[in-house]
């Protein structure tokens, strides 16, 4: 077992443990904080995969913006009854069974593929992934259209969110 694998396993334990706490903890504000831990674990995973830019974006966008948005929403909609009453539906075992079946099926499929057992090749020298990513995002030959569609989607979503959430519209 190499150092890479030990780091990966620790990171996986952090992610899965935090994710489980997100779905089973009773207090919603704690669930939001556990989500921050899970997202941080995913950022470490991106760093292990040598996608440094995505690791930074994960911390800035997910932890810095989305998680804070969740915490604000929890505080704005807080009610004592919700923290004390049942947090899960009465037939919660059905989703648990479904999730377990999906996990078992996926693991069965992944283990059955010998190609997925390979280790990664060494990163080719002289390849600047950050530069390549920047060029790919704005090059007409590559992904400029999905990039622009994503930015328009984001703009529309933000305008819509401001309109929906603002209270006084007469």
């Amino acid at each position, binding site marked *: 077992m190499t150092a890479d694998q030990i780091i990966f396993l620790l990171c996986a334990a952090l992610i899965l443990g935090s994710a489980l706490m997100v779905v089973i903890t009773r207090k919603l504000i704690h669930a939001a904080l556990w989500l921050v831990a899970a997202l941080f674990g995913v950022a470490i995973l991106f760093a292990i995969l040598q996608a440094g830019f995505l690791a930074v974006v994960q911390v800035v966008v997910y932890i810095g913006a989305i998680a804070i948005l969740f915490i604000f929403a929890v505080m704005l909609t807080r009610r004592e009854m919700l923290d004390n009453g049942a947090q899960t539906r009465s037939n919660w075992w059905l989703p648990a069974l479904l999730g377990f079946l999906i996990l078992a099926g996926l693991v069965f499929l992944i283990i059955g593929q010998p190609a*997925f057992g390979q280790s990664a090749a060494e990163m080719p020298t002289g390849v600047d992934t950050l530069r390549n990513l920047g060029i790919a995002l704005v090059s007409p030959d590559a992904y400029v259209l999905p990039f622009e569609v994503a930015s328009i989607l984001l703009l529309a979503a933000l305008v819509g969110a401001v309109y929906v959430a603002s209270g006084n519209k007469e």
Partner: protein
Amino acid sequence: MSIPLSWFLILAAALFSIGLFGVLSRKNAIAILLGVELMLNAVNINLVAFWRYQDPAKMAGQVFAIIVFAVAAAEVAVGLALIISVYRSRKTVVADEIDLMKW
């Protein structure tokens, strides 16, 4: 890097299943959105892992991961705005009690 690709895929599958369980079992609408975030992150792990293990010179995996980031941010902004708006008019965030459009 000596980690097999299947480890990443199994981790992402487990994270997706946990998120799915959260979405289907929670009553609170905000908790449902938390589960959706976990599922989107599982997808991102898969995209970046396949990018790294197949051909790091082609950027398709990372570009799509960035688009998933943007979609996740849009989804959370609109979803939480809707929840806050519903909470203002109906004083509840329990998904079962939001039955305005139920016939």
